[in-house]
């Protein structure tokens, strides 16, 4: 079981929904905002964030921390993130287990790390530095990847070990697990099985696209059936976890994304029920 509060079933805050959110709010339980989009002086985005925060819980989700990068962590970025967190009081602050910048060049992509002892040793003090500045435990998300390096560990062994050594938590993106599993030919259930349940703060669900030779993490479609199945498996194992639907490309009407979050609620409820029944069955036998 996770030790984090259960926020329910949320959606990502996206510009295309600003008007709808200001007019009618949202049926979703909570929202996730991309931190960098709100590191601005003022205007409509911050106004919308203030407005939705009045009614709903929020999580700040970054894309440019570059926790795995070789450049030093950017102190002005960390200060801006801390200020944003102080202002909006998110349930937690997350970013990705990846690197996004090298030699001051921002790639604006979530690039994979080699799963090596060297990378583990590199990450641990950097995570400590971030947790110091934020005065919060950092939540790190597994990314979709299209290439893998030679390494000492599997990605899931690496992530599990990292949570132990760095005392950080996990945002388990079930779609990313599935996409990477297909792209690198591993069993996605082995990945899910390896993550310490109490470390999982949150789950992401999103759509991907199939390019034959590989899957792309495009966030521009409904969640795929195979990912719903992996989500069901994950919840059966972990119990209830705050879940969020991401939709970034060809963003449909707010109701469509809300409906996807509602579907997650149904799938999770059935999975929790199935896990109980199984446990009770074992106890009765």
């Amino acid at each position, binding site marked *: 079981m996770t030790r984090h509060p259960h926020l329910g079933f949320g959606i990502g805050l996206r510009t295309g929904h600003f008007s709808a959110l200001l007019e009618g709010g949202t049926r979703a339980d909570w929202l996730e905002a991309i931190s960098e989009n709100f590191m601005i002086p003022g*205007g409509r985005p911050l*106004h919308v964030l203030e407005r939705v925060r009045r009614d709903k819980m929020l999580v700040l989700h970054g894309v440019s921390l570059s926790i795995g990068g070789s450049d030093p962590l950017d102190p002005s970025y960390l200060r801006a993130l801390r200020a944003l967190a102080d202002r909006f009081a998110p349930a937690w602050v997350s970013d990705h287990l990846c690197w996004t910048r090298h030699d001051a060049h*921002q790639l604006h992509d979530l690039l994979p790390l080699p799963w090596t002892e060297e990378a583990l040793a590199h990450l641990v003090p950097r995570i400590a530095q971030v947790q110091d500045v934020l005065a919060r435990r950092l939540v790190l998300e597994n990314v979709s990847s299209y290439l893998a390096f030679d390494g000492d560990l599997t990605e899931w062994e690496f992530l599990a070990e990292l949570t132990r050594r760095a005392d950080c938590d996990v945002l388990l993106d079930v779609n990313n697990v599935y996409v990477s599993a297909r792209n690198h030919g591993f069993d996605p259930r082995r990945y899910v099985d390896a993550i310490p349940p109490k470390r999982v703060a949150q789950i992401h669900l999103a759509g991907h696209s199939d390019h034959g030779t590989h899957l792309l993490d495009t966030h521009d479609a409904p969640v795929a059936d195979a990912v719903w199945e992996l989500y069901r498996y994950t919840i059966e194992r972990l119990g209830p976890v705050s879940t969020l639907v991401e939709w970034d490309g060809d963003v449909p009407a707010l109701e469509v994304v809300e409906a996807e979050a509602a579907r997650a609620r149904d799938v999770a409820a059935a999975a929790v029920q199935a896990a109980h029944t199984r446990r009770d069955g074992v106890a009765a036998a």
Partner: protein
Amino acid sequence: MTALRLPELQERLRALIADPETLAGPLSALEAKVAALPIRGDARLSSAERVRIYAAMYVARLRDALADDFPALRHALGEEAFGALAQRYVATHPSDRPSLRDLGRHLPGFLRRGEVAAVPWHAELAQLEWAMVGAFDALDQRVLAREQLGVLAPEAWPELRIVPVDSLRLLALTHAVDAVRERLLAGHDAGAITATRTLLRVWRQDLVVYVRAIPQLEMAALRWLHRGSTFADLCGWLDSVIDADQDATHVAGSLLARWVEDGLLVAA
């Protein structure tokens, strides 16, 4: 085992992802470069093809970010030319800030310097669109309201501070790109564009960004105000620039009324 240390590995991959040759050049040339990296390939995708996936996403993401901020320029150029411009631009000005919000800040200058083939008004259109991006998320400020002026004691008027809002941007251009922008965004062609002196103010009022063409005197006054000043200072300055038969206090009053109407001044 990875033979390369992490910084070296990241530097080589960064360079390959950002290099246009990774996508445009022959796969064999890329394979030779990628062979030095500890990247795994398999029967479905070689290690070089996997690097290409990242290179393609890199260009596409940056192009899309620029398209969001320069929608009219994109219409003016068309998809293909805009994509080529984006590629040239990010090769010259790679992103160095955490947010994509800042990516386009060098684009008007890039076009102005003629580093890509472009007609003169393209740079001015980009300048206008970038000013709108800046006004959109500028600092929120309490603005001077008409009611506040209504209750101002006569003796307080000279000392009234006249400070423009942070969102205000002033553009002195040689083409009417404000009208061009509207035509392009309405789905029309840019039309025939002749050189004509165009003074624009861009600002945000109640979360909405506005663009307005203004006369020479208002432009000069707003430029002058940027130094910070009082109503008495404004009257004094106007007196030195307007015709002798005009009343500076009257002109200042009508400018002030217009600015307050548009939410252009910060409340004291």
